[in-house]
């Protein structure tokens, strides 16, 4: 294969960020091209169809399915209120009358003379899509949503849980190897997004939730703590819709791993700014990684910015090792031998030689490194 390399996570001090803000169903776009928006502004809205309720009417009334329509007091398409009569029997003796009440406020969707079922639908549920980032509307997608652009610091995490949230960024540790403990989290951090160093444990996450912190960015944490946070053991990495009261993004991986120096320095340099984060992760073909977007308030859009890496590996490129035995270490490519070599497992694979900052070197399979933007 010609270009076998791992592109790595994007870390960019200043770049154009384009965000598609799309409705799940077609609806109305409430802004126009060129509008300058704040993250909390509504850009589009629509109504989701209401939940459907089924009632086995014939069983409840004691009649035949083919006769059901004769007993209905409402027909398909009619609006009904909760506890309103929708069907009733008409016996000679009124005391024996059976009535069927609507379990919801909504409309009659279908009446089936085969199954004797009546389906009712709740009223449509309004939903709104927010801008999520401060930026400028550059395109209107009719009835679907908008495209917003901004100039921002942009970082990808490796894994996250929890959805979109916005808050002021606060770096609460001094070094990328520091642990973000419960003691680091103060009442003043309510509604903030906190960035830490190498590791966080569940007691600190609990403290953050108690205080009202909106999001946390940290190097690593343990799978056991993820299970505690979610309430279940995560099987497949498709996240973002969890209702856990906080968004958590890890930048390096599971375990105690210092945050990459560049990531830490960037976050520190942007501390105090309004930040939009989303923990949504999808590790499948068409991978989605969690994102951290810190717009520049004075430059909403239109400025030339960093370009992502779009080439193969070269000697001298900085890389991060992403698997043991050198997991988490950052170094520079020293050699890129062409022929596959035998590694400890006895597998013959393409490798590279990496030189770490202390001058030591190691042979690593090419599949086990990711490129870092210079």
């Amino acid at each position, binding site marked *: 294969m010609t270009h076998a390399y791992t592109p790595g996570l994007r870390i960019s001090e200043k770049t154009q960020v384009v965000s598609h803000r799309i409705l799940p169903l077609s609806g109305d776009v409430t802004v126009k091209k060129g509008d300058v928006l704040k993250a909390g502004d509504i850009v589009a809205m629509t109504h989701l169809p209401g939940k459907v309720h089924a009632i086995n009417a014939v069983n409840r009334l004691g009649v035949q399915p083919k006769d059901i329509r004769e007993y209905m007091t409402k027909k398909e398409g009619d609006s009904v209120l909760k506890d309103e009569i929708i069907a009733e029997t008409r016996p000679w003796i009124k005391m024996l009358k059976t009535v069927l009440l609507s379990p919801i406020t909504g409309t009659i969707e279908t009446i089936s003379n085969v199954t004797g079922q009546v389906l009712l639908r709740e009223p449509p549920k309004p939903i709104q899509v927010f801008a999520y980032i401060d930026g400028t509307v550059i395109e209107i997608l009719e009835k679907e949503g908008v495209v917003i652009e901004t100039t921002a610091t942009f970082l990808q995490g490796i894994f996250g849980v929890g959805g979109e949230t916005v808050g002021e960024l606060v770096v609460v540790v001094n070094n990328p190897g520091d642990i973000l403990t419960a003691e680091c989290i103060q009442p003043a951090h309510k509604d903030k997004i906190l960035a830490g160093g190498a590791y966080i444990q569940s007691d600190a996450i609990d403290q953050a939730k108690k205080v009202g912190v909106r999001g946390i960015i940290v190097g690593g944490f*343990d799978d056991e703590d993820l299970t505690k946070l979610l309430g279940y053991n995560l099987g497949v990495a498709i996240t973002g819709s969890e209702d856990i009261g906080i968004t958590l993004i890890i930048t390096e*991986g599971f375990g105690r791993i210092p945050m990459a120096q560049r990531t830490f320095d960037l976050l520190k340099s942007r501390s105090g700014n309004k930040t939009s984060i989303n923990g949504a992760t999808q590790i499948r073909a068409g991978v989605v990684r969690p994102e951290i977007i810190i717009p520049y308030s004075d430059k909403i859009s239109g400025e030339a910015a960093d370009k992502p890496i779009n080439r193969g590996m070269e000697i001298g490129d900085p890389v991060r090792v992403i*698997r043991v035995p050198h997991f988490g270490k950052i170094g520079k490519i020293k050699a890129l031998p062409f022929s596959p070599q035998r590694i400890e497992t006895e597998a013959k694979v393409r490798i590279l030689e990496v030189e770490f900052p202390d001058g030591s070197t190691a042979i690593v399979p090419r599949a*086990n490194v990711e490129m870092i933007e210079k």
Partner: protein
Amino acid sequence: MSAGFYEKGDNDLDVIIATDCGSTTTKAILIEKKDGVYRQTYRGGAPTTVEAPFEDVTRGVLNAFAEVEELSGRKILDGERIITPARGNVGVDMYVSTSSAGGGLQMMVAGAVKTMTAQSAQRAALGAGAIVMDVIASNDKRLPHEKIDLIRQLRPDIILLSGGTDGGTVSHVVELAEFIAAANPKPRLGMTFELPVVYAGNKDVQEKIKEILGKKTSLHITENIRPTLERENLIPARQEIQKLFLEHVMAQAPGYKKLMSWTGAPIMPTPAAEGLIMQAIARKQQINVIGIDIGGATTNIFSVYGAVFNRTVSANLGMSYSISNVLVEAGLENILRWVPFDIDESDLRNRIKNKMIRPTTIPQTLEELKIEQAISREALRVSFEQHKSLAVGLKGVQRERDISEAFKQDGEGETLINMLTLDLLVGSGGVLSNAPRRSQAMLMMTDALQPEGFTRIAVDSIFMMPHLGVLATVNEQASTEVFEKDCLIHLGTCVSLAKGSMGKPEENCLSYKITMPDGRKTEESLPYGHLRVVPLASDQEAEIEVVPAKKFDVGAGKGKPVLKKISGGIVGVVIDTRGRPVTLAKDKASRVAQLQRWTKAIDAYPE
């Protein structure tokens, strides 16, 4: 680009190129007829280009072709046109392809009774190569609104609706159709077209189904998959699903219309093609076959017993994207039991999650390799359990039981999978095909599936079963020749105890006499709880006589000897006296010692 490539007759194909467009990689193989025999000669690969920025599957296909051109010296492309027919070292006679890109074919099935028509519908969809996202049945204990929400949220590519035997239940089937109509589901790909629904249920309800679903979905009516309780009729529904896969699902995927115009046979879902090659080989050699394909996201299991073919896919059991789900479904304890050294539980959990979030990494240390191979055993075991529970005789059929059956209520009498009558076990997928030592693949498959009696074990050398499956639809000779000569790497034959044969460690278990092709004889005995390897080359056959001790069974009954011809392989003949099921010691130190003894016996890892 011209369609068809039928300038030569189907049986005069000399040069064939085939691709499998997977989620991440497009793999091409070149097959050439040399001295009257078809052989796989060269291969190439390139990243699949279904997604942005390319959004055209044919880019990846052309890149894979270019690599084959480079390696083989054969000119296949003239710009972006496939040269056809083949003349000398230029051109090919036919191009065929399979596809699982974009997540493959994702379906939802519905039937009246969970263990009857709904299960038949599930088998029909799986056999057509689909991933079954969920099964809805009238008696699945979900409330109506839950069913409707589920149908709406899942957004399948196709829904298969069945229910009722002909002349049987009407109301349950109509109810399911009403739920589908109320959900008004949208397809996964292409917002503008209507969701295809295949109706294959009670024929008396067809008109009513048209009334309910005709206007809201793209409805296709086919023969009932369960016309009577005693008969399952899956082929018409499977064919309809595969036709819709091409017409609706594939046609919406980027670049597929062009790709379809290039191929000389319809593009097939990858697992459907794998199923075809398994069936072709079972038919040709008159044997029972089980195939396992363990990928990064999913594990497919195929079985062919006599004329009955079954396929299951465990959609979230795999070695990279789904590795964490193996931990969830199998449990940490079960994974740990196969790790031949002491490891901290928290460390193991973090390592599994790190593989999940960086799925393309590979083990660099021996310790990491052993962990992945331990996990693979559990992924295979759980997938195989799921296969056994679906590969069953028809439920709902009344049959007479004799008195012995009436007493044998072991709850699994209905599965069609009988490990004692299995002839060939074929493994595929990175963790098996690319294991640094072939003995590791042999041990992983033996531990996970626990074959009984005499079972030949092989691996797919470079993952070409899908290519050969689709090729079988146009030229079965080419397909089976390449399968036997180039696709399979025979590891050897496993000689094991039958189910229920349990003993105490080191107890006298069996003796065996092997007569080699050159007449040499090996005569030994092996106590209970051991593995031993007797070298026998891939192209050799030997005669073995196994005499079990009186409480042990190797297939003919307790204490009864068996005389058999067995085939060799890269590993050889593996005599396995570990009992069925394989029992591991409870305490950690003894278990680790046990595992180390077995891996040493089969020479699985370097010292």
